[in-house]
């Protein structure tokens, strides 16, 4: 079985671009707080979602809807509506994280396939088995904390499909539960769907360098020509012992294109490309590179697929992250 290529789409144009570039499956979200990439001008309304599903199905591909934030206290209506609208649009599966949303989806739309979002942070057998047995999830998106060997061990034991991240931003491995962002902005990433809400991000040019700020906090300072990082608290440079360093995470992107054979051998079902907040140019570039690499792997070809993805990688740097745990 070939590795399934699961690709991001923040807009209908990006969805078409992903499919045209060779995605097997595209995931997207509604234009509100119910998905973890809730940025202005991004995402799909109900009509666009149905049109996207129609386009994908016409090309024999699938669409998943991410409803993967956590409902606000006393206000579950947007999350219920998102599940109902996804089902009505003919979505192939929903990607969920919250227990209550999982419960609602299972009761109201038992026939709608459910995947467990990375936001649920289920990274061990006991946790995944709970979601599998209680909510009949068919696939788990594994957090970016596991080595290839650990992924293989999980695959052998959990009895459901696994999806792992293959390319994109690397967070400090708390997967959507960033308390620093909440502390700085007063907005919760888990309920609002943005770890650095655009409304709180600003840039200031002081002549020699550019300062990125989240709320009242300066996160970083970039000299002319120095690669920039996302304006998130985890990618901030903080001064300790008189030196400014990346304490949590450096501006670097995960890229597993060179270890696809290892991931396939580990029994992984699907590869996820991160980046619904990125442009359709990014989608086209990353998806077509991974399509070539997967096809080469299937042919048993030894020819290396030229990796040209550094230009779209954060900080122009790449890592295999936890898959190899090279820092140990």
């Amino acid at each position, binding site marked *: 079985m070939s590795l399934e290529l699961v690709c991001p789409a*923040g*807009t*209908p*144009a*990006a969805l078409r671009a992903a499919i045209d570039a060779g995605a097997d499956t595209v995931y997207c979200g509604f234009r509100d707080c119910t998905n973890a990439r809730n*940025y*202005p*001008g*991004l995402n799909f309304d109900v009509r666009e979602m149905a049109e996207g599903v129609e386009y994908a199905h016409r090309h024999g591909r699938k669409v998943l809807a991410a409803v993967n934030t956590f409902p606000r206290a006393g206000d579950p209506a947007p999350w219920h509506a998102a599940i109902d609208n996804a089902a009505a649009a003919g979505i192939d599966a929903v990607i969920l994280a919250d227990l209550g949303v999982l419960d609602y989806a299972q009761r109201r739309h038992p026939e709608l396939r459910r995947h467990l979002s990375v936001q649920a942070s289920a990274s061990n057998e006991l946790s995944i088995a709970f979601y599998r047995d209680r909510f009949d999830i068919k696939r788990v998106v594994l957090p970016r904390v596991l080595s290839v060997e650990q992924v293989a061990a999980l695959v052998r034991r959990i009895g459901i499909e696994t999806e792992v991240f293959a390319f994109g931003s690397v967070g400090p491995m708390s997967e959507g539960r960033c308390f620093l962002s909440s502390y700085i902005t007063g907005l919760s990433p888990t309920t609002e769907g943005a770890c650095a*809400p*655009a*409304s709180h*991000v*600003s*840039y*200031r*040019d002081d002549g020699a360098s*550019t300062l990125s700020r989240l709320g009242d906090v300066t996160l970083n300072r*970039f000299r*002319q*020509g*120095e*690669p*920039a*990082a996302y*304006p998130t608290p985890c990618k901030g440079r903080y001064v300790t012992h008189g030196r400014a360093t990346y304490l949590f995470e450096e*501006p*670097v992107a995960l890229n597993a294109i*060179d270890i696809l054979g290892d991931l396939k051998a580990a029994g992984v079902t699907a590869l996820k490309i991160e980046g619904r*907040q*990125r*442009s*359709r*140019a*990014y989608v086209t*570039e990353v998806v077509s590179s991974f399509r070539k690499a997967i096809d080469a792997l299937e042919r048993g070809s030894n020819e290396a697929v030229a*990796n040209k993805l*550094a*230009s*779209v*990688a*954060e*900080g*122009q*740097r*790449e*890592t295999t992250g936890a898959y190899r745990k*090279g*820092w140990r």
Partner: protein
Amino acid sequence: MHDSHPLASAALSMVPSPVLARMVALLTRIMRRRHPHLVENFGRLDHGIIHIEPTDLPHRFEIEYGAGQMDVRLLTEDDPPPPDARIRGSLAALIALLEGRIDSDALFFTRDIEITGSTEVSVAVRNTLDREEIVMRDEIAALFGPFERPARRIGRRLDRVIGLARTQVATLHAKLHEANVPSRDLAAECDELRAEVKALKTRLAKMDVRQMRTAGNAATGAP
């Protein structure tokens, strides 16, 4: 990173402001007609104003949107700084962004574009434009009304000539800089070197302590 387009910036630089202002107004009307979803999506956003400043042009542009409308106009020298946000970059980078040919985050990471002011405004504009499949050559050809098709043909021929020139320049550039092509292993190599330097520093610190202790002992006569 992105194609340079010296002909376009040189040509636009020579157009007098009043003529360019009328062209911008006409182009906006045409884009409203050809891309109704673009207007609809801009209209759904909260009100915002952003200035677009090509660094290789003597002109600046303004996009105002929200509350059901979208408008683009040429700015004059007397116009005040943007109330909300500003994006600066080469004309080629800005057109590539508009057409969705290049990733804005990549341009931001490499600092090829500069964003100042409200990120909410610049992100909203970027995302809204990225929803549409815009090809500037076709939009400009549409300015010619009944002569749109010949204009499009001329545009395509020009593109081919410019494309060929670009490829030749890019090949020459690549040859000149073959030694500088960054290796994929560079990051890993840096990590290894960093770890090695750290280990050596620790070793050196331990040796220093040991030496100081030995020197101290020698001074006091202790064993």
